[in-house]
């Protein structure tokens, strides 16, 4: 077991290193660099930056060096536990990201819990009572949730909130706490603001999970051992919960590691609309302004979380499904 863990952690480190390279390459794909984006943005705002000045900026920010030198410098920073400068913000990347990473993780985990809390019972119900009215209703609601883009959904909620209930939806803090240091009152304020974005984030995911849970459980319920169990007169509850549900959870376990980047990707647009201080909008913005180090650091952080999430999910898989033995996970 220990040897296996060591092996997996070693692999994880290599994967993360590979992610840093892929990230750097992908971020270099769009034409131009930060200074180009900067000049474009400035001119859209009505400010002129001359060609000579652009060259000077490029030099000041080391963008006139080759990609690999830039990569090397970034890696050197990482080894020292920092991530370099955000070009646009003019501050160290870690300072720019600040609380956002934790708020993102908080929001994502919240959304994941809501998703699972809703999806598993509904999925089990839908499978056991296949083709019942309830099954159809959940199916219908689920697909409506899937077919409405998050952006539209968030906008509708904000609009309805304003027009009908006269409340301003959005943000994770009330304005008086926006700039305040952390305190219990601020935590309480945050707790009050979390549910709406959490629910919106969870909605599409829930529909998806319900369908998958239902499908897997149906596959399991058809298997001979279930028939045998029933024939032996086991209670229906035991028949279903003991093995089929556990086996149906297998696919969930194998994707649990991705939930975090998945929720973060999915939350970018919602965060933009609802003005949530998560890393999503920051990532989007850094990509548009080609703020290399900020963008690649956010991606790297998500990458680390994913890789360790996957490791976690493999371990979970072994625990849930005893058929998978260590030997097979080489």
């Amino acid at each position, binding site marked *: 077991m220990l040897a296996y863990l060591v092996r997996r952690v070693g692999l994880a480190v*290599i994967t993360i290193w590979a992610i840093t390279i*892929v990230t750097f390459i992908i971020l270099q794909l769009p034409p131009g660099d930060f200074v180009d984006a900067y000049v474009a943005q400035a001119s859209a705002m009505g400010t002129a930056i001359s060609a000579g000045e652009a060259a000077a900026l490029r030099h000041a920010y080391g963008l006139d060096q080759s990609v690999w030198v830039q990569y090397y410098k970034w890696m050197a920073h990482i080894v020292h536990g920092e991530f370099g400068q955000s070009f646009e913000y003019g501050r160290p990347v870690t300072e720019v990201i600040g609380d956002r990473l934790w708020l993102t993780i908080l929001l994502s985990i919240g959304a994941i819990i809501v998703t699972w809390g809703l999806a598993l019972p509904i999925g089990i119900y839908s499978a056991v009572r296949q083709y019942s009215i309830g099954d159809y209703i959940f199916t219908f609601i689920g697909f409506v949730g899937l077919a409405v883009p998050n952006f539209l959904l968030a906008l509708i909620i904000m*609009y309805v909130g304003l027009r009908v209930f006269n409340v301003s939806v959005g943000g994770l803090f009330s304005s008086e706490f926006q700039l305040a240091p952390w305190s219990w009152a601020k935590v309480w304020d945050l707790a009050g603001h979390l549910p709406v974005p959490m629910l919106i984030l969870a909605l599409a995911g829930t529909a998806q999970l319900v369908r998958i849970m239902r499908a897997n459980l149906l596959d399991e319920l058809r298997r001979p051992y279930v028939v045998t169990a029933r024939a032996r007169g086991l209670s229906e509850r035991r028949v279903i919960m003991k093995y089929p549900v556990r086996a149906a959870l297998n696919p969930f376990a194998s*994707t649990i590691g991705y939930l975090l980047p998945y929720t973060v*990707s999915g939350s970018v647009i919602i965060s933009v609309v609802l003005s949530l201080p998560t890393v999503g909008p920051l990532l989007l913005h850094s990509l548009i302004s080609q703020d290399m180090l900020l*963008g690649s650091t956010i*991606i790297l952080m998500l990458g680390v979380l994913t890789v360790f999430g996957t490791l976690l999910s493999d371990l979970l898989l072994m625990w849930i499904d005893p058929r998978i033995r260590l030997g097979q996970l080489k």
Partner: protein
Amino acid sequence: MSATTAENKVAVASQRQLIWWRFRKHKLALVSAFIVAAFYLVAMFADTIAYTEPFDTQSARSYIPPQPITWFDADGHFHPTVNALKGKRDPRTFKLSYAPDPGETRDLVLFGHGYEYRLFGLIPTDIHLLGVSNSRPQDALFLLGTDQLGRDVFSRLVLASRTSLTIGLVGVVMSLVLGVLLGGISGLYGGWIDVVIQRVIEILRSIPTIPLWMGLAAAVPNSWTPQQVYFVITLIISLIGWTELARVVRGRFLALREEDFITAAELAGASQMRIIFKHMVPSFLSHIIAAVSLALPAMIISETTLSFLGLGLRPPAISWGVLLQDAQNLQTLALAPWLLVVALPVIVVILAFNFLGDGLRDAADPYG
């Protein structure tokens, strides 16, 4: 037919017949099959069913609400007509309002004349399923209203179905094939192949989709037509979609490998391929069907995100995602909520695909 003869019939029926009987019993699946077929018919005859050129703009038609049809005339005879509309922009509120002009009615006619097109890309014609007498349809007929540019929503929806139901589906199929194949290989062979595939998946999954799209979209050459761009974007979306399925399939394979029936098949000398497709895949068919019915809406929704990044698709590549994107603004919610109707066909088609899938899965296991 007596009970015994029916039983005998079952006993001697071929597998295919059994599947068909079983499927037929699944009423909802049957209905769904018809709905899916109907959608594809619409896509095939899109130009005939649409009555207005989907790109025909006209400011005097901006934001017309869905138009009611009068089915019977004053004498109670079946005689579908629509009223001509009179539009007006209020100089104080700047809102456009349309009132029916009771003096001017237009008869709805079947197989009327409209814009010219080529049926199946070959036969030039101007016959459309619906038309109006004594007027151009684009000036009189607005079954689902119009958008900001005065384009007919119904016609646009119909034409967009063609893109979404064809090119959109290609992407879904691609990610399905990739997912099952690579996931299967990874789970079945294990060892270094598994390690490599798993790492690739891990890297792809851990990079958020937005930078991937932006990077790849920038690489699309300037000279490509909108349709080509659309196709490539679909491919890009699907290239990321396969990983999740692959992980699940691998997990299932790992579990199934130890099952007795697989061992039995191996001992009986069945080939690898046969084992995979005959014995292993069917045991998690439900999952695959669920994954496919989830991938289609995801594909359509992804398009709306692209527009957000300034990579939006422009005509003539209109798709449901593009139409949905057009509806995502404040003025639509407040002034033209009918534009949200675009979500409806998406929901219907996904539900139909899903129930059809359910029926097929049940039928594939006729003894179950």
